[in-house]
């Protein structure tokens, strides 16, 4: 059946901010869905609170609402838009949950709106373990033994059935939050208590452990005619027990016979039917007992997912796009395969390569949190690699991770801990497996400890065996063999005791260069017109480079804290802009979650690691006019100088100017020359030097390694002792890796400026004021555009400095400048002549795509030619709030500092600052209460500052609880407050109030310069219970304005298109 004519308009629900377990794969899927629905002539509206997404670019949907993803807001949007249908299956669990809630509230029925893609019933069966279990029993499929419990007593009864170890899964939480595996009774009770607590319905599932079983996933699709196809099978390298998001995964399945695979396929078909997914994609997970082959169903997601994004990239089959078409009535056989353009989409892709996905974690940001991996996902990003063999793909993936490994190797291995590391998996496990193989451990022993299938161990053994044959004076044949195994030049440089450059020279001389093969969905059975390519060392190259004018854009690699979707957004925009200017665009990236790695985004896609070797190989083949490195964050930036040295033309701002801005000494000299003040600073190559610098400029100082993004290892230190601690624990200063020491401007206002320049002119896109005071990483700070507390004369200074800096650096493209204002002086903190994290935010607010403007400059169009000569302005107040993963890292303190910890961001829009801030908080998961109780505990410095806030709260009718000191102070000032005990003062304490749900907001500024355990307990407990916890005075002030506004102002919704169309 063709398109359903009764659906003329659709609302697509996005997935909101990037969080662990729900990242930019939903920007990829949502963007695909919107594009294809528009192409089908539908009116499309979109709601997503995340401004850093491509999907929220106003040119995609007809109406784009950057509004909180709450049922209330959705209801208002639906009332305005009155779409025929809502598509909730491309926005992750967030969108599904919202759709169910809207259905439950009767909103959809009242407005006569249909859910398409998945019914409420299907979503509920997919999510509710009890319903799912019943469904699986109906169709005769095996599940691990299990039972539900709502109390500890009930849980212990279930335990009799399942035995230990047991898996505990809270119902209805994201990414398995709060789940775990209990090996003993004590652990069991602990995890049960936490799970009951975290589940919104206070229910947990306790399951028989299938720990160590082989783990598989099938990505499947079904249409209304009951046509069913498996798009991709995935085998987890890490067996059951580690969340699939934290597992190395491999496509296609490697160790299943056809009999077992078809058995799984048949089960998947039964499941998608029984759950009732009529149109669209689902992800179904299975466990297989390696000893008996017993297969059990683990779970199914009736929507596109992280795995389906991976499957799409792994096969070339665009699952989300097809799912959207199925949702509006098409059948699979009516849709063409995009890659072959002649065969239908109703088929099962086959691969003639191996795909390996490797997660990337950020435990270094959460030092107090346990780095052990389990059933709760903790990784923040992933890399995908394609090779003709597992060995090749694995080594490409490992070097693409950018964690200091040039392949299947790491040097910082503690041989005494191998057994422990193999048994208790953490992010380093794979490197410990390598070390065990190096030392000749028996595969049986490694298998017993890790459960990693012997086939994978054998593959890795082959890498180890070949390494042993690699040494100085390697011959051509062995070198070629090593390249076929995926060894990087850098690694071979180590192994042959030469250098990356020497290996490269040897390769070139011997003609050992990679060829590029196409990802074509069909293992070459049909011709492919889509240049989606990967490198390998084989005979035939299929790249077929064109002779068009072309540019290459380097992407940002795996997501990490500090470098995420914002940079992918900018890379996509660069590609779009160059395409519009008539260039062929070539994208290089290795992050499967992104829009940039959609084969539709650029003319040509190379799915490759972003190392010098891999990039240079493509450049030599494609010979682009230039390479764009300023949009992908630190990853391509690091390549700027090596590429330039190799004779590659870097488009836009020169590598030298980038280096100048990063090099503290050169940059200070420039600022002195321009007579622009900066905090006193110095560079130290040893701890002694650092102390000297600190003594000269005075404590407190901000210390950090040079060349970092996201404030990695950045700290504020207040005396010599702390400085020594820092040098010992965080960063070793050395001549190669100097440490920067800056005077820290306490209590300053901080400002971020995003601008674009063409060498002749600098146009300011936006000046954002940080809501938190100085000392908190700009990526973590809430911000507001336009500024709300900064004197016009300072803004004038800021604009002036920005222009002078842009011209002095010869910026051609984007630049970001951070300022601090203290005692009426505007200081420059840093300049980054490249895309910034706030580029998409400012672009959305101002209605001008800054990254595109920048790319056009590189393509040769001046700002004047583009008609962009005046600084941009905004027509509303836009608040950016950051979203943190603390819930995933029990034990980590939520206190903010100079090291970035947030994973994502949201935007709140209103004419009123308070409402915009409240919207941003709601979008970040903290709905502003209209009444309730606030707990206040602030240090002595902040008591005066908190007083007006407390007074307003009391006037608004909020009950105020406070610790003794704060309560006494408030009451003395005539603000009613009830005293509550600190944790160490007895019970009931403030933590009990939080647990009992008696507090709605916590204001807690730390007592002094080192974190106090008591405070940290309050903050942790607030975080775990979803209570808004504000840790800065300025944050408290903004929150109170928001509370007031929510009581007094009308909260309305408005689309970006409407805002931008206003005169």
């Amino acid at each position, binding site marked *: 059946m063709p398109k359903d004519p009764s659906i003329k308009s659709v609302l697509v629900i996005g997935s909101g901010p990037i969080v662990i377990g729900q990242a930019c794969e939903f920007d990829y899927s949502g963007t695909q869905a919107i594009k294809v629905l528009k192409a089908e002539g539908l009116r499309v509206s979109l709601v997503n609170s995340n401004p850093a997404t491509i999907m929220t670019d106003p040119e995609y949907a007809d109406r784009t609402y950057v509004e909180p993803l709450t049922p209330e807001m959705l209801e208002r949007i639906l009332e305005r838009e009155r779409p025929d249908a809502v598509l909730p299956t491309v926005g992750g669990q967030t969108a599904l949950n919202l759709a169910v809630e809207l259905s439950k509230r009767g909103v959809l029925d009242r407005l006569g709106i249909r859910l398409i893609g998945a019914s409420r019933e299907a979503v509920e069966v997919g999510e509710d373990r009890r319903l799912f279990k019943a469904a699986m029993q109906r169709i005769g499929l095996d599940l691990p033994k299990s039972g539900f419990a709502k109390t500890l007593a009930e849980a212990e009864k279930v335990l009799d059935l399942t035995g230990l170890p047991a898996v505990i899964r809270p119902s209805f939480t994201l990414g398995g939050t709060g789940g775990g595996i209990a090996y003993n009774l004590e652990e069991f009770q602990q995890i049960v208590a936490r799970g009951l607590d975290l589940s919104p319905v206070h229910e947990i599932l306790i399951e028989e452990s299938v720990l160590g079983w082989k783990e598989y996933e099938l990505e499947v699709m079904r249409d209304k*005619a*009951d*046509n*069913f*196809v*498996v798009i991709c*099978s995935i085998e987890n390298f890490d067996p059951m027990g580690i969340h699939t998001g934290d597992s190395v995964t491999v496509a*296609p*399945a*490697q*160790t*299943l*016979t*056809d*009999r077992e*695979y*078809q058995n799984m*396929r*048949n089960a998947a078909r039964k499941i998608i039917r029984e759950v009732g997914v009529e149109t669209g994609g689902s992800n179904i997970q299975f466990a297989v007992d*390696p*000893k*008996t082959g017993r297969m059990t169903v683990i779970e199914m997601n009736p929507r596109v997912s992280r795995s389906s994004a991976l499957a799409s990239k792994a096969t070339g089959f665009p699952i989300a796009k097809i799912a959207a078409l199925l949702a509006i009535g098409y059948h*699979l*056989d009516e849709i063409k395969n995009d890659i072959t353009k*002649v*065969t*239908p989409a*109703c*088929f*099962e892709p*086959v*691969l*003639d*390569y*191996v795909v390996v996905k490797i997660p990337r974690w950020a435990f270094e940001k959460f030092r107090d949190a346990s780095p052990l991996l389990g059933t709760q996902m903790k990784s923040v990003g992933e890399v995908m690699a394609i090779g*003709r*063999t*597992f060995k090749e793909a694995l080594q490409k993936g490992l070097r693409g991770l950018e964690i200091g490994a040039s392949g299947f190797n790491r040097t910082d291995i503690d041989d005494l801990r191998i057994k422990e590391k193999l048994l208790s998996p953490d992010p380093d496990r794979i490197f410990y497996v390598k070390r065990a193989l190096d030392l000749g451990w028996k595969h049986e022993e490694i298998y017993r400890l890790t459960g990693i*299938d*012997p*086939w994978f161990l*054998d593959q890795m053994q*082959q890498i180890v065996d*070949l390494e042993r*044959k690699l040494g100085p004076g390697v011959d051509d*044949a*062995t070198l*070629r*063999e090593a390249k*076929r195994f995926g060894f990087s030049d850098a690694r071979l440089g180590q192994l042959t005791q030469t250098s990356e450059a020497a290996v490269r020279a040897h390769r070139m001389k011997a003609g050992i260069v990679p060829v590029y*093969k196409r990802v074509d969905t*069909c*293992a*070459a*059975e*049909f011709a492919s017109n889509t240049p989606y390519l990967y490198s390998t060392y*084989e*005979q*035939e190259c*299929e790249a077929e480079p064109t002779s068009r004018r072309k540019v290459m854009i380097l992407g940002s690699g795996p997501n990490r804290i500090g470098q995420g979707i914002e940079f992918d957004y900018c890379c996509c925009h660069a590609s779009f802009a160059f395409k519009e200017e008539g260039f062929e665009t070539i994208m290089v990236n290795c992050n499967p979650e992104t829009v940039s790695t959609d084969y539709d985004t650029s003319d040509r896609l190379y799915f490759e690691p972003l190392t010098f070797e891999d990039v240079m190989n493509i450049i030599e083949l494609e010979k682009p006019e230039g390479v764009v490195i300023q949009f992908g964050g630190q990853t391509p930036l690091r390549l700027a100088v090596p590429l330039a040295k190799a004779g590659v033309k870097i488009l836009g701002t020169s590598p030298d100017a980038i280096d100048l801005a990063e090099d503290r000494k050169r940059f200070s000299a420039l600022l002195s020359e321009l007579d622009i003040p900066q905090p006193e600073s110095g560079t130290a190559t040893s701890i002694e030097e650092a102390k000297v610098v600190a003594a000269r400029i005075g404590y407190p100082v901000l210390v950090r390694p040079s060349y970092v993004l996201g404030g990695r290892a950045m700290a504020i230190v207040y005396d010599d002792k702390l400085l020594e601690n820092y040098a010992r624990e965080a960063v070793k200063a050395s001549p190669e890796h100097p440490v920067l020491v800056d005077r820290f401007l306490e209590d300053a206002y901080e400002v971020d400026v995003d601008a674009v320049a063409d060498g002749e002119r600098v146009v300011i896109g936006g000046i954002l004021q940080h809501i938190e005071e100085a000392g908190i990483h700009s990526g973590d700070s809430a911000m507001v555009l336009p500024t709300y507390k900064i004197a016009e004369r300072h803004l004038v200074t800021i604009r002036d400095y920005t222009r002078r800096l842009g011209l002095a650096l010869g910026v051609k493209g984007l630049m970001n400048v951070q300022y601090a204002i203290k005692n009426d002086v505007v200081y420059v903190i840093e300049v980054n002549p490249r895309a910034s994290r706030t580029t998409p935010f400012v672009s959305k607010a101002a209605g001008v795509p800054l990254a595109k403007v920048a790319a056009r400059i590189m393509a040769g169009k001046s700002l004047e030619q583009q008609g962009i000569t005046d600084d941009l302005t905004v027509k509303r107040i836009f608040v950016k709030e950051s979203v943190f993963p603390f819930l995933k890292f029990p034990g980590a303190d939520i206190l903010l500092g100079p090291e970035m910890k947030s994973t994502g961001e949201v935007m709140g829009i209103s004419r009123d600052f308070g409402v915009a801030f409240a919207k941003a908080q709601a979008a970040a998961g903290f709905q502003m209460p209209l009444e309730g109780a606030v707990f206040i505990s602030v240090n002595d410095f902040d008591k005066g500052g908190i007083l007006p806030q407390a007074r307003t709260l009391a006037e608004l009718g909020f009950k105020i609880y406070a610790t003794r000191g704060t309560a006494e102070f408030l009451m003395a000032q005539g603000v009613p407050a009830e005293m509550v005990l600190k944790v160490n003062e007895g019970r009931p304490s403030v933590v009990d109030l939080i647990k009992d749900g008696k507090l709605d907001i916590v204001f807690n500024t730390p007592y002094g310069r080192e974190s106090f355990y008591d405070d940290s307990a309050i903050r942790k407990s607030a975080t775990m219970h979803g209570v808004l916890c504000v840790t800065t005075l300025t944050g408290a002030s903004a929150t109170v304005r928001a509370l007031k506004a929510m009581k007094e102002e009308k909260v309305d919704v408005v689309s970006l298109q409407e805002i931008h169309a206003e005169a």
Partner: protein
Amino acid sequence: MICLRALLEQGDSTIAILALEDGTVFEGRSFGKTGETTGEVVFNTALQGYQEVLTDPSYAGQIVTMTYPHIGNYGVNAEDVESAKPQVAGFIVREASTMSSSWRASGQLHRYLVDSGIVGISEIDTRALTRHLRTFGAKRGVISTLTKDKDALVAKARASRNMIGLDLAREVTCPKPYDFEGPDNGGRRFKVVAYDFGMKQNILRMLAEAHCDVTVVPATTSAADVVKLGPDGVFLSNGPGDPEPVTYAIEATKALMDRGLPIFGICLGHQILGLACGGKTFKLKFGHRGANHPVKNLATGQVEVTSQNHGFSVDPALFARPEFVLTHVNLNDGTVEGFKHRDLPVISVQYHPEASPGPHDSHYLFGDFVALMAQRPKR
């Protein structure tokens, strides 16, 4: 491409050469038995199921390239076989697994091929080879570990027998009739006579499961001899080679159709049925071999993901005649995948409903065949 891993790691490694009739040569590593073999070089895109492929008699006379690069991962076992031994003329893979990982594995693929006398080659650019075959069509070829004289090997490939006009069914059929009785799973049982043109075991298993007691007969069995067995229905199996020279079976099929017996054909059996109906067959450029081909059932509108292995196809001109009804069509290239007779109890599919390897979407066809037999009065 030289097989370096072999050179580096295994003392007994041997260079193998694949030469095609058009002069294309690949250099790789010996895999399976050393020696020399000729055959028609074809490719199969299935991701798993290599043991079923190897033992499928329809591959007789063919050197099969697996497009998936890792082959042999789960070893071999006694159950996943479609006949008593590997039937391919040769085997080509990118990387042969050096171990087997499966709870069912009873041995390694390499050893299995050595023991069965199958000559193979690994470590070549199988994607380049596949693209070559796709572009220029299936080619006769030779794999050899005996000589490095490429010209001589190309000449050998040219001298090898051509698939067109080749009756291979006669070579792979059973020497004499035998019975395959299914388990008594209740209900009426049907007596089926199955022509063995190179029949896959799983067809027998599926027929047995569908309440059939099967007598398997050699390809050359006459219609009269079949009738003597008193069947409720006749099955025409899959098999290798060109259907046109299998004239004895075409004649027998005509006679059996005339008697009004229910007939079900698969693959070569389907082509023979097409010829018996007065249709024509032709050779496809590079054939359909894999487990992912979409076939539309024109009666239900549903799409089945099918297992395929054929190089010849029935000419759709047959359907200009109203008594023949096209029932299944390949969505990739529009070729004929199934037909039935308007009046007679005759059904037939080009693909493999018994799968093995491949999806089980089309198992229903065995039920359809049984239904045709059930509709006839019991004699």
